[in-house]
């Protein structure tokens, strides 16, 4: 049974669907956690404390990294196969088909923007928080405590270029999820003509919720830094 997940097109797609679903659930958790920073720096730092270099947080981080890796590696494999299947001679003329979303045809490119944003995010936060703790340090490169997440947010989003880059990243994530969320139901076989409009509506709601939730923290802290 295990092998159809690698050697069958439908199996490989199921891996994309399930790993994508896992990443969306993680994003929903992360977004809810971030919102605490808007209410209280102490509350946010308490959550950061729970998720420091504890064994469960490290195990969670490892599973999450594996999820991202699987989703990325499969995306590359699928795209290479798809380009080969398309053939070497391309159409001289193409049009955008009716009812086909732009995002659905550009998932890999959008995915690369998301991945770039993730790299920036790991540099901005993870390398200054959990990584410092794993290495046994008590202050990060900015001279802050690695568990003082609230101070790190305040510092990062007081710089306009990080604010701009994070908003671009979140916009790319929005596009990626408007297709990805309903698409994972379709791949798992859990869709029909009645449910397509509903699933697409749910996808738009989840994508927008995540965008607004994440962007709120970025924008609010930027505005606070100006005042």
């Amino acid at each position, binding site marked *: 049974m295990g092998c*159809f997940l690698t050697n069958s097109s439908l199996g490989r797609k199921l891996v994309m669907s399930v790993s994508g679903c896992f990443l969306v659930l993680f994003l929903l958790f992360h977004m809810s956690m971030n919102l605490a920073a808007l209410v209280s720096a102490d509350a946010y730092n308490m959550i950061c404390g729970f998720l420091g270099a504890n064994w469960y947080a490290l195990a969670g981080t490892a599973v999450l990294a594996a999820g991202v890796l699987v989703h990325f590696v499969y995306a590359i494999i699928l795209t290479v196969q798809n380009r080969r299947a398309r053939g070497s001679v391309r159409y001289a*003329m193409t049009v955008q088909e*009716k009812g086909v979303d732009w995002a659905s045809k550009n998932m890999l490119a959008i995915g690369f923007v998301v991945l770039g944003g993730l790299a920036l995010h790991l540099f901005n936060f993870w390398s200054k928080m959990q990584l410092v703790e794993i290495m046994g340090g008590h202050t990060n490169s900015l001279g802050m405590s690695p568990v003082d997440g609230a101070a790190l947010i305040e510092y990062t989003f007081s710089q306009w270029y990080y604010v701009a880059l994070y908003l671009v990243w979140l916009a790319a994530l929005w596009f990626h999820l408007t297709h990805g969320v309903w698409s994972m139901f379709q791949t798992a*076989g859990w869709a029909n003509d009645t449910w397509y409009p509903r699933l697409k509506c749910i996808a738009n709601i989840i994508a927008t919720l995540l965008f607004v939730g994440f962007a709120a923290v970025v924008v609010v802290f930027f505005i606070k830094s100006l005042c």
Partner: protein
Amino acid sequence: MKFTLKIWRQKDAKAKGGFQTYTVDNISPDTSFLEMLDILNNDLVHKGEEPVAFDHDCREGICGMCSLHIDGRAHGPGTAATTCQIYMRKFEDGATITIEPWRSAAFPVIKDLVVNRSAYDQILQAGGFVSVRTNSVPDGNAIPIPKADADESMDAAACVGCGACAATCKNGSAMLFVAARVSSLAKLPQGRVEGARRAKAMVAKMDELGFGNCTNTGACQAECPKAISIAHIARLNREFLAAKFED
């Protein structure tokens, strides 16, 4: 009406092809697209030139033989119509029309606008059938089938196997074709019994022939001349995954 045609010409499967430009004049707006190509070929034959090779048969939208990628769209500027159902009144007088063969690695060009679509036949041979003895036509309603199931089965069975789905798909995926075949049989009691075996065999053959992986863009259903829904792809996914998890 007068048209400039940019047509893909390719001597044979191995030759390198390219576009050639032709002009056709005095075309009635009620000429079908294929008749317009017949008129062009007539002119070419009179001039002693090689006529343009293109596939066609019934010319009433039911055989699935005509193909052609016209102005960037499989089967041209119609909705739920094959190339033979397109009339020249759909185009502006004096327009330049680009005509290409299906582009998909699994559909190699044989000559000019003709491609080899036998890959679809091979997928069908892998499992797109019922292996019970059907004998003569049974009495109507001898096997009770809910109307909704019969309707869905018939919607899927409308597939003519023209290849527009794989030709349109940016991934060269044959999923809509395979899904239509699996779905039309899966919804009927006669086909249900072999459902699991059929889904696995047809998907395996589709992968083996080098078709791509579906990414749910929905471009196939937008260009399908029979307007077959990607809901059938969801059913194929269900059939296949259920069969695999049962193994």
